C-alpha cells in the first residue's frame, strides 16, 4: 500500500490487491460501504498486545458494493483488532467522477480473519491512587484557604 500512496499516478486505474485491517467505521451509504483499510505493522502485531511501536498508520479508503457480509465483526479501533481482509479492485487516484477522492473500488473482498476484541488494560493503579490523593489533598487545601471548612476550637 505504501507504493500505492507514494506513486498514485502509476497505479491509477490499475487492478491491485491489498491486504489489511478495516479500521474506524463502516460508512454504510445504502448501496455502498466506505471503509478504511490499513496495511501497516499493527495489522499482524497489534500495539495493545505486542507493546511495540512501529510508526504511523498507512491506510486507504475502499468502496465496497453492497453490505458488509456477516462474520466481519466490529471495525478496528482501541481494544479491537478489526477484520483482516484481502481486497482486489481498481485503484482510483483523485477520481474525477467522485470529485477528487483517492480510493480502491473493490471488486472482490475476502475475509481472512474476523475482528477480535483485544484485552482492555485495567486501570493504572499507581496513577489512580496518586490522582485521587492529589485531587483530595488539593481540594482540601483550597477549601481551607478559602475558610470553607469549620474551624476546630480548643476547649
Amino acid at each position, binding site marked *: 500500500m505504501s507504493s500505492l500512496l507514494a506513486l498514485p499516478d502509476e497505479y491509477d486505474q490499475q487492478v491491485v490487491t491489498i491486504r489489511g485491517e478495516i479500521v474506524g467505521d463502516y460508512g454504510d451509504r445504502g448501496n455502498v460501504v466506505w471503509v478504511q483499510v490499513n496495511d501497516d505493522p499493527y495489522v499482524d502485531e497489534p500495539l495493545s498486545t505486542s507493546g511495540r511501536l512501529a510508526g504511523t498508520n498507512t491506510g486507504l479508503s475502499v468502496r465496497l458494493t453492497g453490505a458488509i457480509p456477516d462474520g466481519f465483526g466490529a471495525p478496528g479501533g*482501541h481494544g479491537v483488532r478489526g477484520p483482516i481482509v484481502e481486497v482486489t479492485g481498481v485503484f482510483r487516484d483523485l*477520481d474525477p467522477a467522485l470529485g477528487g477522492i483517492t480510493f480502491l473500488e473493490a471488486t472482490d473482498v475476502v475475509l481472512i480473519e474476523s475482528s477480535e476484541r483485544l484485552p482492555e488494560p485495567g486501570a493504572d493503579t499507581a*496513577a489512580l491512587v496518586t490522582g485521587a490523593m492529589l485531587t483530595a489533598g488539593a481540594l482540601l487545601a483550597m477549601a481551607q484557604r478559602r475558610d470553607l471548612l469549620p474551624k476546630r476550637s480548643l476547649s
Partner: protein
Amino acid sequence: MAHDLGRIIGVVALAAAVPLAWALARGEWRSASHFLLLMGLTTAVAASADRLPSSHGRNVDWSHGMVVAALTWLIVPALATVPLWGSGHYSRWIDSYFDAMSGLTTTGLALVQDLDHLPESVNLWRHILQFLGGQGIILAALMFLAGSGALSLFEGEGREHRMFPNVRTTARFIWRVSATHAAIGIGVLASVGVLVQGFDPGRAFFHSASIFMAAFDTGGFSPMSTSIAYYNSPIFEAIVAVLMIAGAMSFGLHHAIWQRRRVAGNIEVRTIAFTFSVTLLVTILGLALIGVVDEFYPLVRVGLFHALSAHTGTGFSTVSSAELASWSGLAFGGIAIAMALGGMSSSTAGGVKALRIGLAIRAMRDTVREALLPEGAVVSRTFTQYGKQHINPNLIRSVFTISLLYVGLYLSGAAVALGLGYDLGPALFESISASAAVGLSVGVVSPDMPLLLEIVYILQMWVGRLEFVAIAALLGFAASTVFGK
C-alpha cells in the same frame, strides 16, 4: 505571579473532566486513571500556587503578565502529556510533549503512532487541547479571574483587539461565540455523519465533536490517520471549510457581524480576500501544470480545500503526505505562501496575519504616494478596522518588526532541517507549517525525526503562537533573575 499561573493551570483540570467522563463511559479504565492523575496534578499545582504567601495582594504589571503567559504555554503542555504518554502510543516523552504543544498552539503536526487504535478518550483529549489552545488557556481562565494583570495576560497570549472595555466581558463573549458555533457545527456534522455517511450515532458524535474543535480552532488534528480523506464526502468537506473560515476570522469581526455592522471595508477582510484569491489561483494553476488533476471540478475542490486549509492555518488534508510532497512548483509555492500569511489577528489562526500584511501594503502605498505628490501635500494615513483608525509610525514599526521576526522564524527552522540533511523544499515547508501553526506535512515530521529538529519545531510552535512579545519578556525576566537588574 505564581498565584495567577496556578489558577490558569487549574483550567486544565476542568477540561480533563470531559475525557475522564468519556473514558469511564467507554470502559477505557487505563486512560481514565491517567485523566484522574492529570486532574490531581493540575489541582495540586493550582492549590500550591494559591498557598504561596507572596503570591497574593500584588498587582501583576505588564511584563509579569507577559511572563505568566509565556510560562503557561510551556507548563500546560507538560501537564497535558500525562494521558498522552500514558497511552503507550509515543516512543519518547518529548514526542507526547510535541503533540501537546502542537495541539495547544493549534498547529496539528503529530507524532502519535497507531492513531487508529488510540483510546477514544485520549483522542478526544488531543482535540480538546486544540479547542483550549485556540480559544486561549488564559482566556478561559480570564472568564473567572479579574484583576490588574488581566489585560497583559490577554495580550500575552497573542491577542490584540478587545471587543469590550472589560477583558473579562471580552473573554465571555469569545466563549459565547465559540459555544454557538460548537452547537451548530457539531449538530450539522453529526447529522451528516449519520444521514449521509452512515456512521453509528455515537461514533458520528465523536467524529463531529473532534473535527469541530480541530476546524473551528484551526488546529488540524483528526481522529483518524487519513485526516479529512477518511470521510470521503464533499458535503462534509464543505462544512469543515465553513468552520475553518469561521475560525480564521478575528473575534472582533465575529462581534461586528453579530452586531450587524458593515465589515466590507475592514482592512483584514479585504487583505485576506485578496491574498486568499491569489494563493488559491496559484495553487490551482500549479496543480493543473503538474497534471495532478486534469478535470475542472476535482482540480478546484482539491486546490480550494488545501489553499483554505493552509491559509486558515488548519492543516487538514484530503491527500496523503506522500502525495502532498509531490506537489512541486506553483502548487508548492501557493500552499507555502498561504501558510506563511495566516488568518486574522485575534483569531485562532497563526502566521503573519492579514492585519499586518494589509498595514504593510498600506504603508508602502502611502510612501510611494507621498513621493509622487507635490511637496507639502498631505497623505491621509488611515485604515478601517471596526471604525476609522490612524496609522502612526509606532504601529508601522511594530508591523514590520513582527512580520520580519516571523520570516526569521520560518528561515531558522528551515536552516536547522537543511543542516540535518533535508532538502530545501520540505525543510522550508515544515518550518513554516510549525511556526505558523498550520500542521500540513510533507513527511519531515515523523516519529523518527532527529531530536534536535523536534525541539526546534516545539520552540517554533511556542514562539509563533505567542507572537514573540511574551517570549521576549520571559527572556528578559530570566536574564534579570540570573544577572540581576
